């Protein structure tokens, strides 16, 4: 169905130690068999449950202390729901969420209260996530006030310091959100998330509403904050290049499940899951022509050349409905390698043969793991 050239022969290459040559930091947040079904009501008077949207369906992941963990996938794959479950804005249908050895899967308001200050969120839309009637000072200071934190020097001084950290002018303390541009508003959101010195920040598409030039400002800010404050990030995004730039470990989601997880090099250079491969090959890249920069004017009138250096895989069709996912492997309906086994047997997320340490792939017929991008 899909035009994909056959994968080349090749060993999976040596083990790669990307930075983390020392011991792995301890787990900060762990999800096991995490599941969230949203009931579909039907009939009259809309009380009967006629089905369920299986937004997250048996997902395992670990976010370690101080690391930036990326979660990528297309719309509807359940990545935002996962973020909201881990922040416990939603209660899981099944499975467990463990935060620093404490099971918080069904924790109530009181039990969650001390944890809430350690886990903060940054949202996608800087226009709807800030109260238009509050000044920046009171927005950024709200977490301090709610948690009755009295920093030395007073709350206002702390808020001004936070504004300075994120690159906002502290003199704008009394301004309202509408007086700021989109990028600046996102900085307000970051300052608010930092106010309580959290251990984990869950950032749900924090830069996708911003223009490219502004996006880079916010990405750099988040990277600086992550490193300097040693805060762990769960970075949720659909943009593969942004995630690659920000996260050391990355999980790829498809239809409520993680299909592949590993460090940056494993995912971007030697992906084994056909979906990861297809996703990467679909990203349009502006640098196709950069390689020819040596003699740019020469080919000015050359015929259209729409080929990439990467092999192109075109997936057909759309993602199936999460209320009725395919049996077995969920990707099989769009996969060019699918066989009978894929329909009957769900592939487990495991370290398949040839994978580097920590690289797990859920596929019966994985790709050869040849170098894809370098």
């Amino acid at each position, binding site marked *: 169905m899909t035009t994909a050239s056959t994968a080349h022969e090749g060993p999976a290459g040596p083990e790669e130690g990307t930075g983390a040559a020392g011991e792995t930091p301890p787990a900060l947040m762990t999800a096991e068999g995490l599941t969230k079904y949203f009931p579909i009501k039907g009939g009259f008077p809309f009380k009967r449950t006629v089905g369920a949207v299986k937004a997250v369906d048996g997902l395992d992941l670990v976010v370690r202390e101080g690391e930036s963990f990326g979660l990528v996938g297309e719309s509807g794959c359940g990545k935002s729901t996962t973020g909201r479950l881990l922040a416990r804005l939603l209660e899981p249908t099944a499975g467990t969420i463990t935060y620093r050895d404490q099971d918080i899967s069904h924790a109530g308001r009181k039990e969650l209260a001390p944890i809430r200050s350690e886990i903060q969120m940054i949202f996608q839309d800087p226009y709807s996530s800030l109260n238009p009637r509050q000044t920046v000072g009171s927005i950024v200071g709200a977490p301090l006030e709610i948690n009755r934190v009295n920093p030395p020097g007073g709350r206002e001084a702390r808020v001004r310091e936070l504004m300075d950290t994120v690159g906002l002018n502290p003199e704008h303390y009394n301004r309202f959100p509408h007086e700021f541009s989109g990028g600046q508003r996102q900085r307000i959101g970051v300052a608010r998330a930092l106010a309580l010195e959290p251990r984990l920040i869950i950032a749900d598409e924090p830069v996708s509403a911003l223009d490219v*030039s502004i996006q880079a400002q916010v*990405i*750099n800010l988040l990277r600086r904050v992550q490193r300097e404050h040693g805060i762990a990030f769960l970075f949720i995004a659909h943009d593969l290049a942004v995630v*690659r730039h920000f996260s050391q470990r990355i999980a790829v989601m498809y239809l409520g499940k993680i299909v592949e997880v590993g460090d940056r090099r494993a995912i971007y250079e030697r992906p084994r899951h056909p979906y990861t491969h297809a996703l990467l090959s679909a990203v349009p890249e502006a640098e196709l022509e950069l390689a020819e920069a040596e003699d740019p004017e020469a080919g*000015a009138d050359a015929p259209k050349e*729409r080929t990439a250096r990467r092999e192109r895989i*075109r997936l057909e069709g759309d993602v199936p409905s999460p209320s009725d996912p395919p049996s077995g492997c969920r990707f099989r309906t769009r996969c060019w390698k699918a066989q009978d086994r894929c329909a009957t047997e769900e592939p487990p997320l495991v370290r398949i043969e040839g994978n580097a340490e920590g690289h797990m792939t859920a596929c019966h017929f994985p790709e050869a793991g040849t170098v894809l991008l370098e």
Partner: protein
Amino acid sequence: MTTNSPFLTVDDLRVHFSTEDGTVKAVDGLSFEVARGRTLGIVGESGSGKSVATQAILGLHSRETAAVSGRITLDGAELTGAPERVLERLRGNTAAMVFQDPLTALSPYYTVGRQIAEPYRKHRGASRRAARERAIEMLAKVGIPNPARRVDDYPHQFSGGMRQRVMIAMALVCDPDLLIADEPTTALDVTVQAQILDLLMELQEEFGSAIIMITHDLGVIAGVADDVLVMYGGRAVERGTVREVLAAPRHPYTWGLLTSMPRLTADVDKELVPIAGSPPSLLTPPPGCPFAPRCAFVDEVGDGRCAAERPALPEGRGAACHLTEEQQRTFYGERIRPRLA
């Protein structure tokens, strides 16, 4: 089919909106050309005027609020100030548009078949039956499975990617010579985006239409455009073939776009280099170069020239910048290109 004489010519286009706060100069002196069979990519960020400019070509602005001046010529016919009935004959016939969000651009009350057939019936005077046949044919052409059955479905019964295909079918139903695609894939997932861009390119080869592709994504430009126009603050700041603009960009704004973009093959240890500040106000544009307040090369020009004097965009390949061509080459080669490696 493919000739290189300009099919669409836009000369000194200005679109000004009067608001309570003053006049918003959304497009302020824009000129470009598109030939048949070619794709012009217009890149720019929000507020750069890229959508407003192309909407003006089809006369989509209300005459009460928007003041449009300049000359727009399509296949030899003057469009600026043309009466509404002339524009009506044009829209959906000679020139058609694909919008970003198919959910708001399609009517929820009519079947997709009826919406695709409407321009065909209006412009070609086709019978109900012939138009329906044509709609099925178009649905098949844009790759919708089971077109004969799907023709009677409503937009909400299609997924995002399929809806965008429906809109493309509607735009192409009368074989337009000019297709304007305004961020046609921005609302779509990457795997679907790739399908839609491939489809547009295939259809262009088949019909030989001129395409204007408006986007903020230089990656999309690299994949589909022949020529590129970079817009900033309501004006064009750089022009060239796609190869020229991406391989040897001349304008500091284009440089900034390239260095602020995270890429799949870039060195992750290198910081992105964003463009400082934010886009200009279109209410009170600065008198000199609109990019000067954010530009890192103002001192290289010196004498306060950037703030005082508006640089012109040369004919053909070039950038609207006071840096000499020599400087543009040197600075790109020495300061910008190493950051992109």
